[in-house]
């Protein structure tokens, strides 16, 4: 089955790459090499191997917008990748979000260690396009930030504890650092780097084919951090991320995300973010997530709705 999918995919792959590459930035080139590497990575069949991908398909989630294991906009308590308590998994992702006035992209790497610890890195960049000119920062001005994340699973087994109400619970932190220190300060952000702290609870309800997840996040990040952190009058506040997904098949999951965000900056109002997504897991090495997103108003440019696409490759 795997062989069949692989040969099928390889045929479609070249065309897919051409289409996607023409839309996504040059960064996709990097991911392409990672993906090719992954596709040729021999599937380790030994159940004891460090990279033997012992978890069930889709149970590592996908890389969310900050690079952690989760869905589109929300972080989940699941540890990314397919490593069990005896293994590890590595993922690369590229995400592009085409909004009404902007494009947001994210590339990153994440590692799941022994189904206990997750480490992630993501680089995000936010192209202001023509809105940049309207904002007086120059057409096509691009904000960017780096995000380093760590997550630890504390208790619970989201998949196995079907006879208990206790969800899988994890805590984590993101270190976010702006690449545009002078400008975000000029926009009114108090800090050019900052920490987010979160606690996340995720439950797979197999009996209903549902995945439910909620995360409480202490953050001062303006627009995920792309517009800096905090302001003269506000600092960390508590925010929620909620996600519900239905498992149509082991490989096809669709759901909705809702995420509240701070509203720190005086010059522009910030609103909650929403997404409705479909994630398809071709196999344990490759998944594609497509979503409709609504990030609310950003930098006075009206409602930012758009299309989200994220490709994740891993072993």
């Amino acid at each position, binding site marked *: 089955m795997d062989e069949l999918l692989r040969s099928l995919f390889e045929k479609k792959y070249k065309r897919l790459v051409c289409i996607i590459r023409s839309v996504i930035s040059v960064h996709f080139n990097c991911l392409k090499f990672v993906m090719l590497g992954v596709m040729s990575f021999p599937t380790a*069949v*030994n*159940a*004891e191997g460090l990279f*033997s991908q*012992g*978890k*069930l398909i889709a149970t590592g989630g996908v890389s969310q917008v900050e690079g952690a294991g989760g869905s589109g906009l929300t972080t989940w308590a699941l540890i990314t990748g397919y490593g*069990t*308590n*005896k*293994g590890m998994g590595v993922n690369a992702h590229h995400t592009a979000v085409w909004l009404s006035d902007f494009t947001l992209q994210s590339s990153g790497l994440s590692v799941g260690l022994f*189904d206990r610890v997750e480490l992630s890195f993501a680089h995000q960049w936010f192209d202001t396009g023509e809105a940049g000119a309207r904002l007086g920062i120059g057409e096509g001005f691009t904000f960017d930030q780096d995000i380093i994340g760590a997550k630890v699973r504390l208790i619970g*087994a989201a*998949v*196995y*504890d*079907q*006879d*208990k109400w206790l969800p899988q619970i994890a805590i984590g932190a993101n270190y976010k650092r702006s690449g545009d220190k002078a400008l975000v300060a000029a926009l009114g952000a108090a800090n050019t780097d900052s920490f987010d702290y979160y606690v996340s609870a995720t439950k797979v*309800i*197999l*009996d*209903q*084919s*549902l995945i439910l997840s909620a995360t409480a996040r202490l953050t001062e990040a303006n627009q995920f951090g792309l517009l800096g952190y905090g302001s003269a009058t506000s600092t960390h506040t508590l925010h929620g991320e909620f996600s*519900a997904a*239905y*498992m*149509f*098949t*082991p490989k096809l999951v*669709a*759901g*909705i995300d809702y995420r509240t965000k701070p509203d720190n900056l005086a010059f522009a109002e910030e609103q909650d973010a*929403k997404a*409705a997504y479909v994630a398809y897991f071709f196999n344990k090495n490759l998944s594609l997530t497509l979503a*409709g997103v*609504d990030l609310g108003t950003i930098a006075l440019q009206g409602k930012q*709705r758009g299309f989200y696409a994220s490709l994740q490759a891993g072993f």
Partner: protein
Amino acid sequence: MRILKVIISALIFNFFALNANAQSLYEKLGENPKIHKIMVRTLELSMEDERIAFTLERSDLDRLAQLLTDQTCELTGGPCKYEGVDMKKAHVGLGLTTGHFNALVEHLQQAMREENISNRTQNQLLALFAPMHRDVVEK
């Protein structure tokens, strides 16, 4: 956002409409003949999988398929009595890992797919087996 509405409706439908379905899980799985077929096929697929074949090499697979059928029948509300040993005793000393456990689950999923068991019904059965992870897996 139309997709949003569709997905929300699907989630609500899932909770209310499908739960009203009075058929027992035992019936949805096609009762004993089909359950037995699924278990035979699960073991057959497991024997072709080098991750776990070695654990079953010395087992009487016909007997095991029958015990699995009885167990599944009883668990899902069918008219059977499982007469094997408990899950801890049955697997002690095999040194089974989560990787082994999931490999078997993958074969069970495929066997159910081949018998056209709906994904929702498959997951309902897996929900009953999943907690046995605690007793089956030793490390």
